[in-house]
């Protein structure tokens, strides 16, 4: 009986402690970059610029987030002109890759969203240019990033002899059932310019090569904006899937495919 009493007392105490911990946890203003990976930073005058990505950078579509802070007040800067660009210096030749800059000069949830589509692995330069509209500071810098190999971006030559870059954005981690399917399509105008292609008709066909069947209810990606195409892909079981993509742009045809392992 005594033991039970002690046990109950301990249990009550434990509950109390747990409750206390919950209720006294400080309510700090959350960092908008929490959980992101810092890949570069620079402070010029009173403006601190930090560059983040979701995870390690790899070939394909990478979201880049720019956080701008007033280094004196430590407050987030919500108004700035932000732009990025990419460059690969291969000695005898240099080339860029597709990238995306913020649509306006106002931060979204404290950050300026950009994106870079690296078209090959290796060492790249990421160029960042920030004009802080609060104090007119300009922060311009570049840093090297190591891009890991991945199969997300395919270089395809169309029947119009143009070079296109098709990049799989989603699904990042494919699951059974319906998944969002997102692509970006860019073409190579010259070594430094990879504009988005907004007028391609995309047809997708998922299948399991080892089973010889596909799946129903897939939605062909349709253009949203800036060369992003959104559709749906339905995986009916786990295992190795292949998504065949056919692109129609005027008279030009392209084909590529992605191998996806559904867990």
């Amino acid at each position, binding site marked *: 009986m005594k033991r039970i009493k002690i046990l109950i007392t301990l249990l009550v105490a434990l509950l109390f402690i747990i409750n206390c911990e919950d209720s006294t946890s400080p309510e700090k203003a959350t960092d908008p970059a929490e959980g992101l990976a810092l890949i570069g930073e620079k402070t010029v005058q009173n403006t601190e610029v930090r560059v983040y990505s979701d995870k390690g950078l790899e070939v394909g579509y990478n979201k880049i987030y720019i956080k701008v802070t007033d280094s004196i007040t430590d407050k987030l800067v919500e108004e700035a002109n932000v732009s990025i660009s990419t460059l690969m210096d291969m000695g005898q030749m240099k080339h860029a890759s597709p990238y995306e800059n913020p649509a306006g000069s106002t931060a979204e949830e404290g950050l300026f969203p950009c994106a870079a589509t690296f078209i090959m692995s290796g060492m790249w330069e990421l160029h960042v240019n920030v004009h802080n509209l609060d104090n007119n500071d300009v922060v311009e810098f570049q840093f090297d990033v190591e891009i890991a190999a991945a199969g997300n971006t395919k270089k395809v030559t169309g029947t119009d002899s143009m070079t296109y870059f098709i990049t799989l954005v989603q699904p990042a981690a494919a*699951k*059974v*059932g*319906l998944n969002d399917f997102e692509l970006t399509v860019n073409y190579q105008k010259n070594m430094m310019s990879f504009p988005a292609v907004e007028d391609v008709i995309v047809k997708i066909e998922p299948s*399991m090569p*080892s*089973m*010889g*069947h*596909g*799946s*129903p*209810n897939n939605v062909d990606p349709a253009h949203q904006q800036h060369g992003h195409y959104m559709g749906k892909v*339905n*995986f*009916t*079981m*786990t*295992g*190795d899937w292949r998504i065949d993509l056919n692109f129609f742009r005027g008279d030009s045809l392209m084909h590529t495919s992605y191998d996806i*392992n559904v867990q």
Partner: protein
Amino acid sequence: MYNKQKKTMRPYLFIIIVLLHPFWAMQFLLGQSIIQGRVTSQADGTPVPLTNINVLGSLRGTACDTAGMFELTLPAGEYQLKFSAMGFRSKIYSLNVGRHKTEPLSILLEPAIIEFSDEIVVSGEKLLDKIDDWLNSTDDILQKEESVSMIRRANFALEPSLRGMSAGRIGVVVDGMKIFSACVDRMDPVTAYVEVENLQKMDVYKGSFDMTKAASIGGTINMVTKKPDFNRPFGMQAETGYESISQLRRFRSELNYASKSFAARATFSIKKSDDYFAGGKAPIMNSGYQKNNYKLDFVNRFGLRHLLEFSFIGDNAGDIGYPALLMDARKTKSQIYRLEHKWNSPFPGFQSLNSMFYFNRIEHWMDDFQRDVTRRSVMPNMYMPMFGKTKTLGFIEEFKFTRPNHLLKVILDVYRLAAFADMKMISIFPQVSDMYVLNIGDAILYNTAVVLDYHWMLSRRWRWRSNLRVDDSNRDIRDENGRRLLSGFWNTGDIKQTYAAFSASAAIEYGITKNQTLQLALAQSERLPTHSENYGFYLYNYTDGYFYTGNPLLQPERSCQAEIVFERTTAAAQFRLNTYFNNIQNYISGLVQYDEFKVYSNISSAYIAGLEVTGKVKLGGSLLLNAAAAYSYGQNREFNEPLPYIPPFEGGVSLQYSRGSSWFSADSRFGSAQKRFASQTTLEDATDAFIILNLRSRIQLGDFLQIKLGVENAFDRFYHEHLSINNLPGRGRNFYLGFNYWISSR
């Protein structure tokens, strides 16, 4: 000349009979006793005049006088008396006639104004017209019912089809308990769990006129299991058997114990079978199996009014070859629990209250590890082990109210089903990742039904019965991935489903004369989709080579049906004719979605019509002739083609001869050719006619031993029935031999 021949024949026949039955004559040497008794109605205690009393297995019998009294003279021995009266459920009473005077019997008959069921009594009613109580399997007994055909996929656990309908269209229950197959390929029909030694009787309710056991549009089969026998304080029985066609070895045993208020019964059986041979010694590879089954029953009486029953059935089978399918069952495991309380009310008008709780868990593993997967056309080069599981928890409460000429049963039938099935696909090529699919992503169904079953005896000649049943069902998928799969497949966020089904039936019976009755029954009923039809995912159907996916949006099937039954019963003969028409709307069928995929869909309309004829004649000299035949015609109106798996004109004739406790029978089973088959909704083909002959005998040797000896398919015909999946042939000539020994105290 003719006379002379006849005279010389007679001693021969007599000698043969005496030789074959060395013990029957002993009956004559024993003394005779006079049995007296009275038959009264269980509902109100009034006498039941003109009740027919037959001594089963003999031509003896009598009838009650107008006061319900009867008298019967019998030699010492064990008997089964059958009491039958118009408007009452027949009752079989076991009687042990000794040399001493027997106590007067008081027989209570339960009013049952119109019975829709064919009662196949397996045990208790010895030497019954239809059934050999020691037939080798439950499947053999089911096959004896003319409206039942068996779907064959292996040499194991055939699936019953009632009037051309099976699976979700009929209800198969054990002691009223709902049990759901765990195997998505229907390898484990519920009938497999009741071994023949545990089968008391089978109530076959054709059509949806009696909906007390299940909401179905085709009918219900209730397998009533044997319970402990209070009349046998101690009894032990065992049987060993052998069947030549598949080297089947079998052992069965039974133990019964009873005291004044407590009784227990335990059975155990085990069998092992190798591959079988079809007619003409054609070997059917990969068709062996092994199985064991045990059942435990306890009954306790509390005073006169309370009875508590507990039963448990355990069934385990393994290495079951399914030559008609892509896979074999590796292991099956079933546990079935039941707890029932029966209470006889002391209040007038309120007769009884039965409450039953049940729980069962069925698990089923199958795979194709024993098959050559490189040479098959469907999903080649990969192994596909599958697992299935169902768990059912249920509660049935039955109130019975009676008044003179009225009987009302109010039944509350509640159950919860959880079903899960999945499949792994392992490629023989190591570079291909394993694949996994959820066939049933943890479906959960809650069903509640209220049934009113009302009987009314309008007059001596007219009787009325009606049923009203309301079902409410809520169902969903619990597994997150299962939900993603189905909502992705159907492009809907909500796969939860709620159904309400309403069914009603009415029947009127007219006694044309004392021996002839005419019955007209009408019903409108609904049956809910099964959990597979709602939530199954990529279920491979070997009959048409399609993968079926369930449809959460299915509508219930609705049936309008009518049946006319004419029956004529005399002391020496019985004849019955059933004709029926069943119109089904929203018929659930698989329709092609694309490539090799089908989805369950409602098609607008289909119908099944048919007739059944049964007759039996006592030819005298202990000879009994039975004949039964059935014909069904099913048509899919939307596709303008026959419905699939409709049996052709088929039936059987048997001639039985019995003396004492020994018994002989010659029975044939035939099926005409089936040229009407479905080619759009499934892929069938035509089936040829067949006829097979079986010869069976049971010979009593002394007080403790009985020999069972027979040959099935005596002419070794190679045949298959229309309901054999992938035209799997039936068994060839099969000799069987069984020894049955028992110890019993009374």
